């Protein structure tokens, strides 16, 4: 049996750990709130862009009336031989199963695309490290590359998630669009953790290219949270000032819906088709940007939940250690009394 001193030391050490996990939980909660605000601030642009595109679709021919061929390179569908997957994970660990789950979903997706050339763009350090160990990195293939089927990492972005910037997403989107237009890649997917609120999250694989319907996300694979995960998230959100419901975006959406869709005859400075061509690539960047922001929010939420669980585990441990310690102390006292009593009895 450990001595009382040993147990006391353990209790102290667990208490220290609990303090750290508690602080980390609070920090994550604050960061989550900020991430949610940023996501909300970014909403009008995304909504407006989508609305304009939708209204332009109805005003222009996006398909050639004679041949039925799409007139924009990003709408062209090709047999899927070269697939590009963007994987968004976190830069840091200690967020429960957050990164593991994303990578599992990515692996499952890759399995379903077996026999095809697969290229990966990794955003976030955790995903990059894992994927690099597994597949290795190489230069992107070109259109006339005839090498055998393989899976490689062609790009990585690390340390961009701390402060998500639009330029990162637009730069990546530009590169993808260029390669897609040159037929170097035949489809682009994005895997990330979708975040509506703490209890409404999904792991999704979305198809970015080719674009099928503007304004609708093309989900190839999705996974909801389990009930147990939801319960944990609810517990963690309690008392940390994080709202369980998604923020009310009704007003913002309504205002955005009016953009460029008023029932009047607009003067078009440029032909609608040209506007459409200019706007469509932005739609891709916005989707990537959106994915990055949701992923960041989800990461903070996951860390908050994990740290909350760690804190309550530490509390349980302290309780049981205290019990053991008290027992040990009592045993010691009892033993001492017996010694005194039997000593006294022997002396008399």
């Amino acid at each position, binding site marked *: 049996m450990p001595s009382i001193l040993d147990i006391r030391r353990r209790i102290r050490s667990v208490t220290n750990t609990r303090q750290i996990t508690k602080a980390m939980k609070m920090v994550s909660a604050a960061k989550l709130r900020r991430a949610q605000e*940023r996501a909300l*601030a*970014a909403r*009008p*642009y*995304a909504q*407006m*862009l989508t609305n*304009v595109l939708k209204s332009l679709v109805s005003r222009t021919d996006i398909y050639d009336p004679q041949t039925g061929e799409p007139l924009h390179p990003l709408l062209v569908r090709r047999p899927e031989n070269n697939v590009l997957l963007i994987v968004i994970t976190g830069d840091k660990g200690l967020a429960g199963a957050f990164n593991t789950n994303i990578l599992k979903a990515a692996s499952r997706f890759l399995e379903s695309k077996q026999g095809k050339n697969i290229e990966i763009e990794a955003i976030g350090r955790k995903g990059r490290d894992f994927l690099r160990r597994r597949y290795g990195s190489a230069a992107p293939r070109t259109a006339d590359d005839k090498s055998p089927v393989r899976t490689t990492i062609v790009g990585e972005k690390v340390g961009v998630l701390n402060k998500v*910037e*639009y330029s990162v*997403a*637009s730069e990546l989107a530009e590169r993808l669009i260029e390669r897609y237009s040159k037929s170097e890649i035949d489809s682009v997917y994005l895997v990330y953790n979708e975040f509506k609120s703490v209890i409404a999250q999904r792991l999704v694989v979305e198809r970015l290219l080719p674009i099928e319907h503007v304004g609708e996300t093309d989900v190839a694979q999705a996974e909801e949270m389990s009930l147990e995960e939801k319960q944990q998230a609810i517990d963690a959100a309690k008392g940390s000032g994080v709202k369980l419901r998604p923020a009310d975006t009704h007003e913002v959406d309504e205002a955005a819906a009016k*953009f*460029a869709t*008023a029932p*009047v*005859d*607009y*003067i*078009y*400075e*440029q032909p609608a088709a*040209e*506007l459409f061509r*200019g*706007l469509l690539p*932005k739609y891709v*960047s*916005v989707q990537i*940007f959106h994915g990055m922001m949701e992923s960041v929010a989800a990461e903070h939420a996951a860390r908050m939940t994990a740290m909350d669980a760690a804190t309550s585990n530490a509390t349980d441990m302290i309780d049981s250690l205290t019990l053991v310690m008290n027992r040990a102390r009592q045993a010691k006292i009892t033993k001492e009394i017996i010694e005194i009593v039997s000593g006294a009895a022997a002396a008399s």
Partner: protein
Amino acid sequence: MADTLELEIVTPEKIVVKDVADEVQIPGKSGYLGVLPGHAPLITELGVGEITYRNSSGTQHLAVAWGFAEVLPEKVTILAETAERASDIDTNRAQQAKQKAEQKLKNGGPDLDYFSTEAALQRAETRLQVANKAR
């Protein structure tokens, strides 16, 4: 008819400007347009350039690179990739970007992407121009 315009400038990251203006100038792709209250409904793509708007509290300048604008008689909404107020522009960075682009154009070579470099130069120059007006 209202004698002022509502002006809203939205970027992917946030709403940069939500203000009332007496007059707005926007850099349309095919030339600058001045918008006064009561303008006919219009939709245009924006080029690289400078948005200027005037209201009771003075004249404001913003640098924009690519955007999309909707003009209604009482409202102007602008979607812009980037929109920076004159006071937020980092002149040193713009200066560096300008020099780099100029250098690239001067050196030439087969790897030079003429259009994107030219566009970068233009963006840097616009930034500097706008920043100077703030002073």
